[in-house]
């Protein structure tokens, strides 16, 4: 082969080789391009499929959420209605049995009436717990921000147990550390937590002591209140402790048989404490007593501000002057009957009215000393009726006492604003009614009272 002049045949074969190599490369390139394209398409389809799935799943979740919300809303509406529907006849059972127990009955019958009365009260407590828990679960509990005396709250809550037969053999003690007197928070709900824990301690302690300890620590803009309720009672096993704050879980089934209760008290406490930005814990050993400790956040109260106390008159009086003229305004005939009977039993003069409109006419033609006003009534409610009565500017304005199922602070504030003077909670209890009647009586006879005796 000459170096200077390559063989044409050889060159042709080289060119042919190069051409084939190029074709092969192009074929491979095409193959790879197709593969890439297909992989790309597959990815795109996958992405679209995933997007569809996400959309579908989101829509499903959305629908499920809507269904759940509708169900929750239906549930709370149902509860609100049931609350009223159940409580009304129950109030009649409790009130009437109380009234009946005041009659001279054979001991056997007296016992039966007492049983009816107690069962009614237990059933009412159960219903109230369930409704309260539902309300908390539904996030419908708004905490109040009112100023109150914390020391007084702690002491009076414990004191309220002293009269209970269950606490007769117990020492009820308080150990208070540094506690601010004036704080801002939800007094009613805090008392509810304390009452629950102390109530449990009393219930599960046969002898020894129940000790309420409390101490407050300054925090930004307020206080961290730590409370301990210690008892020397039967105690709680570790596995029982793990379920303690769950709803409807009493320590065990036998607890219910021995001690009653709904199993909701601690669940309610737990939720309330959480809502007050705190926590609740329990340490206990069977036979060694229990310690329930919780902490909540409270705001600092303005030291100089007077603490507004609800205008509830619960002082007893030995008033022996009957003859208070009472107007009972309630749309429910059983409630009217109950209030009327109780008033009569106490030696006063009741009139009844089934609506706010009727009451408005009656107050203008009669001279009532006191009105028992149902708050929840159709057409014109108790608040509106009260406002209109006040607007009449009667020469001798009657005391108006609200009848409410729940005397929560918001209800009280509204009632005061409408011009009411006091509250009686349903079911009407004869002792409380007596106190209200006595107050009216005293006001009538007070020197400088604007009314002749």
């Amino acid at each position, binding site marked *: 082969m000459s170096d200077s002049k*390559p063989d044409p045949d050889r060159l042709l074969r*080289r060119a042919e*080789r190069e051409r084939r*190599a190029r074709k*092969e*490369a192009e074929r*491979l390139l095409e193959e*790879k391009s197709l593969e890439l394209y297909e992989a790309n398409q597959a990815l795109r389809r996958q992405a679209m499929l995933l997007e569809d799935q996400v959309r579908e799943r989101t829509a499903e979740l959305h629908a499920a959420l809507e269904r759940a919300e509708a169900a929750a809303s239906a549930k709370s509406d149902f509860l609100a209605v049931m609350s009223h529907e159940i409580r009304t006849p129950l109030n009649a059972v409790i009130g009437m049995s109380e009234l009946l127990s005041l009659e001279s009955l054979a001991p056997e019958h007296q016992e039966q009436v007492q049983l009816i009365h107690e069962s009614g009260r237990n059933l009412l407590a159960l219903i109230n717990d369930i409704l309260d828990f539902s309300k908390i679960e539904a996030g419908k509990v708004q905490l109040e921000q009112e100023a109150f005396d914390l020391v007084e709250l702690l002491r009076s809550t414990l004191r309220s147990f002293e009269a209970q037969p269950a606490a007769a053999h117990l020492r009820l003690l308080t150990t208070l550390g540094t506690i601010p007197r004036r704080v801002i928070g939800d007094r009613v709900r805090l008392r509810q937590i304390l009452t629950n824990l102390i109530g449990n301690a009393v219930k599960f302690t046969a002898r020894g002591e129940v000790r309420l300890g409390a101490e407050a620590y300054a925090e930004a803009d307020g206080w961290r209140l730590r409370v301990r309720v210690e008892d020397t009672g039967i105690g709680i096993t570790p596995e029982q402790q793990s379920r303690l704050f769950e709803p409807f879980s009493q320590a065990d089934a036998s607890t219910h048989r021995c001690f009653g209760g709904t199993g909701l008290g601690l669940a309610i406490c737990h939720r309330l404490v959480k809502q007050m930005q705190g926590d609740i814990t329990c340490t206990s050993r069977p036979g060694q007593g229990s310690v329930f400790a919780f902490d909540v956040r409270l705001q600092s109260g303005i030291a100089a501000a007077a603490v507004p106390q609800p205008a509830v008159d619960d002082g007893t009086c030995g008033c022996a002057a009957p003859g208070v003229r009472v107007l009972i305004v309630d749309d429910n005939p059983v409630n009217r009957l109950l209030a009327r009977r109780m008033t009569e039993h106490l030696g006063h003069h009741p009139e009844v009215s089934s609506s706010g409109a009727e009451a408005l006419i009656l107050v203008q033609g009669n001279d009532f000393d006191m009105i028992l006003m149902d708050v929840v009534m159709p057409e014109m409610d108790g608040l509106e009726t009260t406002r209109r009565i006040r607007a009449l500017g009667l020469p001798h304005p009657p005391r108006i006492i609200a009848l409410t199922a729940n005397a929560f602070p918001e209800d009280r504030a509204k009632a005061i604003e409408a011009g009411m003077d006091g509250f009686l909670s349903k079911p009407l209890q004869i002792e409380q009614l007596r106190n209200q009647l006595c107050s009216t009586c005293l006001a009538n006879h007070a020197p400088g009272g604007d009314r002749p005796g």
Partner: protein
Amino acid sequence: MKGIVFVEFLEMVEGSFSADMVDDIIDDCALESGGAYTAVGTYHHSEMVALVGALSKRTGTPTPTLIRTFGEYLFGRFHSHHVGFFDGITDSLDFLEHIEDVIHVQVRKLYPNAELPRFEIERPNVNQLRMVYRSDRHMGDLAEGLIRQCIAHYGTPVTVERQDLDDRCGHVRFNLTRT
């Protein structure tokens, strides 16, 4: 075997000998591909064995020497094509130590179905490296050429002691010691 190896081999033959030599050795072998190689293709390993054999016959140089020389050539090409693989590595033993977990990983990204040899690597100390080559392609000589050129590339003197663990260049131990 990847087409890039064939293309590089024929370019080396053309550069070291002549374009005619390329034609001749292709003509000497009855190749399925007809010698029309493209870097992105894949061809049977026996075609490489045949081409090297033909070159050896025509030049009188022993096959192992030719393959080792090709290995040395291939390292240079590898370096100029994939200079990024060498980033931050300043020593031949360091480079070779990571042949499996760095270089071969990168090669597989470019050639997903490449059949790469396996190296068992031991680094008893900073101055020593033991590499055990295993491959069904029996290219122990190619590995030696690559290793030697790598050492030459970095410049630091390293002695290479080769121990054949079979008689077909498919299982070879290289003991590298920095001097």
